[in-house]
């Protein structure tokens, strides 16, 4: 069995239309993911490319357990994730997955330090250990001097590095990156992608959603999507 395996994964959205008088119009459905089959090994770096609305983000949301599939199975290390309860799913997100998104998703009124420590604060970890782990990451990502700054005081590249540090704080085996360079200039984008590449080299599996072929070129494998299916 693979590290991540998706079997006939389907996600449908209900689009409820206003019911007209004297008609039995049922709510129409939009298929966001249509019978997706995917198998990934530990340490893979894949890029999913496609136009806006093709289903890239939906796929990342399903793998990140932020969205439940309508049909099909999602296995993670041979565990059927569909069957997990809410607590197990949140543990999975906390310890196994790191998210990196286009607009950083940092809490504005928290310092860089607190933002990075956020996933640890949801677990029963001592303050001392939190401090050690956060400091270590701050140094590795070269943002140690920004620890007490707030996100609005940082540049785009620094924000994204903070987001990556937060994604790495629990030593995840999987990073889901959705347009991680979308809000950055070219040079900073390259820095971020090099950082992700180096993480992959250390054994972290990365699934990257992008529309940019230059960004996708950092991946070992590129998958293209259209209308909820792989081409």
């Amino acid at each position, binding site marked *: 069995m693979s590290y991540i395996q998706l079997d006939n994964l389907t996600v449908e959205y209900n689009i409820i239309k206003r019911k007209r008088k004297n008609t039995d119009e049922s709510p129409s459905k939009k298929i966001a993911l249509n019978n997706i089959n995917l198998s990934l090994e530990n340490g893979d770096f894949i890029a999913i490319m496609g136009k806006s609305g093709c289903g890239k*983000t939906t796929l*990342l949301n399903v793998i990140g357990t*932020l969205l439940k599939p309508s049909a099909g199975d999602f296995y993670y290390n041979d565990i059927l994730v569909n069957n997990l309860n809410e607590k197990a799913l949140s543990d999975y997100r906390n310890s196994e997955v790191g998210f990196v998104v286009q607009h950083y998703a940092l809490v504005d009124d928290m310092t860089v330090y607190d933002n990075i420590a956020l996933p640890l604060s949801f677990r029963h970890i001592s303050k001392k250990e939190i401090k050690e782990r956060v400091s270590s990451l701050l140094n590795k990502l070269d943002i140690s001097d920004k620890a007490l700054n707030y996100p609005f005081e940082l540049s785009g590249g620094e924000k994204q590095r903070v987001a990556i540090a937060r994604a790495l704080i629990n030593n995840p085996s999987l990073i889901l990156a959705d*347009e991680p360079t979308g809000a950055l200039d070219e040079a900073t984008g390259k820095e971020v992608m090099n950082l992700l590449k180096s993480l992959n080299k250390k054994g972290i599996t990365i699934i990257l959603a992008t529309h940019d072929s230059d960004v996708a070129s950092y991946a070992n494998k590129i998958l293209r999507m259209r209308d909820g299916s792989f081409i």
Partner: protein
Amino acid sequence: MIKELKRLLRKNMFLYIFLLLLTSAFSFVFVLLDNPGKEDGYAGPISGMYNTYISSYDLSYNAYLKNGLSFDKYTDLFNSLSTYDKWEYVTQTSFPIKTDDDVFFSDNLLVTNNFFSHYGITAENFDFNTGFSSSYAEKTYSIVLGSDYKSMYSVGDEFTTFDFLTDEETTFTIVAFVDKDCYYTDPYSKEKISCDNYSFIPILGELANNRDCRDLLEKSFSGFIFSEKSFFEVEKEIRFLENEVGIGSLKVVDTDNTYRYQEWSKRYERMSDEVYDYINKVTWILSICLALIIGFLLTSILYKESYTWGIYLMCGRSISDIQKILLSFVLSLCLICDLVSIIVICLSKGSLICIAKLQFMYLVIVAISYLACHRVLKINSLSLLIGGKE
């Protein structure tokens, strides 16, 4: 979770203070709602009836009577007044009765027979027209007691007291008991008074021209005339009767003035009712608006936080964890606002019902805010975070 709760409160401190102020205003509105509207109405006089009070407080009258002069004329005048067919003359003069040990009856009235017929007071197997009389000349007194005394006496029993007309011993014979739950209306206060613990002695009867009977006659003139005629017509008739008998100067008081004043009060009261109803409606509408504002503010605070909740979800919080934070926040806020409100209500002397209404309102606010935020969280938070904008 406490850390997250603190963060929420710290972040929204100004809104929080504003909500507290708003809540205080909200509480005042509830106190307004709680204000008593109208008092229970009193039993008013019979429609179309005019009250005229006559009394003997006239110097010339007293001088004549006390000297025993014109005693017969005054007796005739009293009989004329009480039997005149153009009105009802009701005398209800209180008098004290004492026993050897203590005051025995708390409420005693000297009354004319008209008193019973006017107020519809009845006694079982007893006719007030024929059986209710005393001879003050021969010192034989009949008395009718209220139903409360039935357990203590029977018809035909006699008892002796002091201090009725004189300090001498006086023996009363019980002739009847007034039926239970009979009432009479005080002509001035308009209060309905139960006859159950009253005793009644007839004011009419055989009188002798002695000091005691003259005193009794003097008391007897204090009474009310109930008539459909106006005060001036009644007064004219009284003067006519006085002239007929050949004696005058009874004091005649227009109690209708009091009645009119009471009518004004009633009219004012009715107006107050309308104003109260109006205020009641306005305050309810205002309360609903305030509740909606509080609910809206809470929802907006929590809506603003939905982005942060999305981040929490990504970082490993579960939906139920976030719901707990949300509920704790709304509850803590409402609890503090509620405490402030209760203090305000207590200081404004609001009632328990007012506080209960407020609790209900807060429960509604908590429920609405919680459901609204739950919905917001479900719909918006993730779409704000995930997904690139190419």
